[in-house]
């Protein structure tokens, strides 16, 4: 069993909700990565998304864009991140998911990328600019390597398409909760609850809500409609501002979430 599957398995036994934080690798220096991962693990993260900086992140809002620029200025590369993870993997047991745009992988070479990702102990991959129409470029190679390709569904995906994507899905299904880019939102469209419940009803794998979630209240509320949440921009911002206790609060909120 892949580590992601295992994590959701034990979460289910405990009737718990998932919390998956996102951090930007190399923001503040790649030498921070181990400490950041250990911290998130100690807070009780279900899995951790490790963002790879890209020069042209079209799915991201200002917080992640700026973190990416800071990281790139420090010379972060996908290769560097994978080798850093390889060294620290024995110390961190939480599932690790890479979130990267397609081009850094393409430039790496798909075969070499998968080889090095396996060596580093990567459990999953999220590629925001790779819809199912293009995934044959990499999906079967990832599957052979036992790395889960996490697919996204959105508010604009018709239900038949959501079903199709959910059926292909591995690990968990990432349900985007806003029609837009990443970044904190003060409120969500009222149809989000309906949307998440609909996805839950067709998905054979766990469903996590993400994009825009920024407060403990939202963690609890959106988590109540599905299996948990992903929080990105806010975690990135709190790491940058060194407000670690705020991160703790966010993750703690998921432990109090209504178990339906």
């Amino acid at each position, binding site marked *: 069993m892949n580590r992601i599957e295992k994590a959701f398995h034990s979460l289910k036994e405990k009737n718990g909700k998932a919390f998956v934080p996102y951090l930007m690798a190399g923001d503040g220096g790649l030498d921070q990565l181990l400490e950041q991962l250990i911290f998130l693990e100690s807070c009780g993260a279900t899995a951790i998304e490790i963002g790879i900086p*890209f*020069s*042209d*992140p*079209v*799915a991201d*809002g200002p917080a992640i*864009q700026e973190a990416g620029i800071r990281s*790139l200025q420090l010379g972060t*590369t*996908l*290769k560097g991140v994978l080798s850093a993870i390889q060294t620290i993997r024995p110390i961190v047991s939480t599932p690790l998911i890479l979130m990267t*745009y*397609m*081009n*850094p*992988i*393409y*430039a*790496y070479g798909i075969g070499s990328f998968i080889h090095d990702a396996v060596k580093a102990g990567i459990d999953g991959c999220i590629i*925001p*600019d*790779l*819809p199912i*129409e*293009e995934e044959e470029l990499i999906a079967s190679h990832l599957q052979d390597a036992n790395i889960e390709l996490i*697919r*996204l*569904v*959105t*508010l*604009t*995906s*018709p239900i038949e*398409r959501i079903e199709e*994507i959910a059926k292909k899905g591995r690990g968990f299904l990432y349900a*985007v909760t806003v*029609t*837009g*880019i990443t970044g904190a939102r003060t409120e969500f469209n009222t149809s989000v609850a309906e949307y998440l419940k609909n996805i839950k009803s067709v998905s054979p794998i766990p469903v996590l809500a993400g994009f825009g979630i920024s407060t403990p209240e939202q963690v609890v509320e959106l988590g109540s409609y599905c299996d948990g949440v992903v929080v990105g921009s806010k975690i990135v911002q709190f790491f940058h501002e060194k407000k670690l206790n705020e991160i703790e609060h966010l993750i703690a909120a998921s432990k109090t979430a209504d178990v339906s």
Partner: protein
Amino acid sequence: MTTYAMPDEKGHFGIYGGRFVPETLMQAVLELGQAYDDAKNDESFQADLTYLLKEYVGRETPLYFAENLTKHANGAKIYLKREDLNHTGAHKINNTVGQALLAVRMGKKKIVAETGAGQHGVATATVCALLNLECVIFMGEEDIKRQQLNVFRMELLGAKVVSVTSGSRTLKDACNEALRYWVSNVTDTHYILGSVMGPHPFPMMVRDFQSVIGKETKQQYNEKFGKNPEAIIACIGGGSNSMGMFYPFVEDSEVKLIGVEAAGHGIDTEQHAASLTKGKPGVLHGALMYLLQDDAGQIQEAHSISAGLDYPGVGPEHSYLKDIGRVQYESITDSEALDALKLLCRLEGIIPALESAHAVAYALKHAQTMSQNESIVVCLSGRGDKDVQTIQANMKEALE
């Protein structure tokens, strides 16, 4: 070459193209593909398009024999396809008229677009005024400085121009912001992409709308001479004027097709925009295509004196045509383009856009390798009014 049928159903030109966009855009991209297929086969849509191209844009444009330039080059005859004479001064409007009509047909009331030189922005703002569509244009801060006149034009036409301050603050970054805007407003907004780039169906659709250039050229030349010209030359930013010019000739293997990229300060420097000559395949703005990038896959900044060529990628179909060897890709430096521009002003009384001057510059070189019985057609993609400030500043610098 026998028959050429690209792209395939999923928008692939060989390995290039495709639809590498966030899932939020997929439904819109699929619907657009469907709507375009319907419109393409709909006589009333085609009739509306033809009417506007004739009565509003002012087509057909002349195929002009540049006799003085030909004498100067002392080789093949040089003809200019005068896209600079279109309404708004460049080929860009061929595409914006088509896409705006499609947006209306799809019931979209708002338009977003990116612009580099501002020519596409002006052409978009123009058709939005005509068809009563709300219009937002993203433009890099650097380009806003270089193309003040066009910014004012867009505003005068009722568009909102948003300055983009991320990255290199040029066309690439304007595309990022336009895509982000589209992701956030996709339900009521159509994105009028300005070149043969982006996710399928854009590269195919923009090529088709721009193909009016090549179709007219073919007909005009054949009417006069009963055959095709020996060579066709066009400049390449994203690749739309060239693709529109080349496409009707792709199967005519006797016609040499030459695309001219911007070499900026030189292709052996870091300051150029020669994606096909110096780049590697990769994924950006929705498509797999040749890109200027570093070893880690980070996109590099392009440089060209002409804002319209200042883009680190090039359309997927050009990427494919390069690999199969059907089109030859060359490059021209900033200073060569400036020299060609001045020459065309003095010899023909035509001020070309800096972009188009790259094609003229290569034509001057190439003409000398051909016989006087042969002909080259150059796509004069736009007029140079927008560039006079840049040219003036450059000439001053050269004097100092």
